């Protein structure tokens, strides 16, 4: 218990940031028209590809002979990159239909 309490007190700023980010995430989405659900999901999915950052860190800090880490890390990078690039590209395609007509 005290441990958890201590953790909270130690990472207070982080917790503030977390909570505020969550509120921001809610706030920003809360009034979205139904048709945008899928593109939004797709865009959010692409963002969730930030995991790639972790993969890059992993490889960068691995020893050049740590083949295990390097191989797995590279696979992870490839997977993450598919998520990122594919995700944004597919979202963009979905959103093509919303190109605004000029009002006459």
């Amino acid at each position, binding site marked *: 218990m005290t441990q958890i309490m201590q953790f909270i007190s130690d990472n207070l700023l982080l917790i503030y940031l977390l909570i505020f980010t969550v509120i921001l*995430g809610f706030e920003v989405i809360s009034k979205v028209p139904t048709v945008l659900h899928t593109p939004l999901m797709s865009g959010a999915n692409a963002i969730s590809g*930030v*995991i790639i950052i972790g993969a890059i860190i992993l*490889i960068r800090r691995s020893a050049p002979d740590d083949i295990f880490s390097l191989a797995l890390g590279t696979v*992870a990078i490839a997977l993450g990159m*598919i998520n990122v690039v*594919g*995700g944004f590209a597919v979202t*963009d395609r979905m959103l093509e239909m919303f190109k605004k007509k000029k009002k006459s």
Partner: protein
Amino acid sequence: MIIQNTLVDIAYLIGAVSFVWGLRLLGSPDTARKGNTYAAFGMGLGILAVLLDPRIDGGGNYAWIGGGMVVGSLIGWLSAKKIQMTAMPQMVSIFNGLGGACAAILSIVELTTQDLDTGGMAISLFALLIGAIAFTGSMLAYLKLDGKLKDSQVTWPKHSIINQVLLLITIGFFIYLIVVGHTTGLLIGFLVLSLFYGWSFVAPIGGADMPVVISLLNSFTGISAAAAGLIYGSNFMLVGGILVGASGTILTVLMCQAMNRSLFNVLIGGFAASGGAAGADGDQVAKSTNAIDSAILLNYSSSVMFVPGYGLAVAQAQKALKELDDLLESNGVDVKYAIHPVAGRMPGHMNVLLAEADVPYPKLLDLDEANAAIPSTDVVVIVGANDVVNPAAIDDPSSSIYGMPVLNVWEAKHVIVMKRSMSTGYAGIQNQLFFHERTKMFFGDAKDSIQKLTAEVKNL
């Protein structure tokens, strides 16, 4: 060095803000595309930053990184480009699964190669669990959505009980690993269990609910990325992951609401509830739509044709309809009305109504004019008509109206039918139009529906 550090930190910061801003813009049709670009920009900035961050020490290994990135980018780009419009949700599901897999792999490496304290271990195990679930769950969702697997092929009897038991076991295993510590064997076991649970979790959920599930799994991936952010001490990952986690959750709830269901219902209800499509005739199911989707469809089309029927008169919706017409016209949509000779309950019934609403005569097309115009019409909106748009008059010699000329609305690109229920019209016969692939039903009183639609068009 400190300058470079700070620049990297600022890049991360800008990246994180771009995520927020991008998500915000993604929420409105007019700016959605820009939002996606912003988010992509933020990601690019983050990747650049991590590549240049001088604080990470180690081998560098840029060849490995480059290789992985090139391969991943190529695959991602190509598959996004050649996928068909209709298959996009599946694609998103795959992408999401790969993101989850990535998180799971990182966690494994972390757990096996690093010396972690309890907190770090707990977080890594958590990321592993969630990432693995997102992976297999998304893959199954893809297979179901794509029709590669039928619901019945992946469910077992008492599936939801099995799932609950599985969940308990998984949690127990998770706690055990944290408290007692892990070996490689145990880790593999945990991985397999997690993967299996992800699959089993999605298995009993009806195919029609897959988009909701994908959205949920997407927020899982986000959370696992955030957890990884904690492991690697990256605020950028943390913020990005949390944003996705939070907005993904809200989005999931919104999607359920749009389907008039609760999330609980979707997750636990399984198939049973998923059959609740709006109207069904035997094994035919009519697709239903709503105000927002119809609004976007109408607003972004270039020609719309209204087909008024007796229901327009009953709902006294003529003025509401005219208002929608005006609004669409002002947005550059060409609007016409198709008047079937026997629409309504007296000769000229529709004329009387539309004159009351001051619809200019040149906008009214009679049967022949309308049928000539329909194939080039983007959306036909049927407002409380039924018999006069019944294809049975053309293709069902046994029908009592066979031979009567009708409006061939099914030749238009999209058909929206506004009526209160699936019930029949004056002639008392079923209407196959409602089950046509291009038809969507918009249930409710016509005036109500039109007013909702108008409100949504105004919001666009």
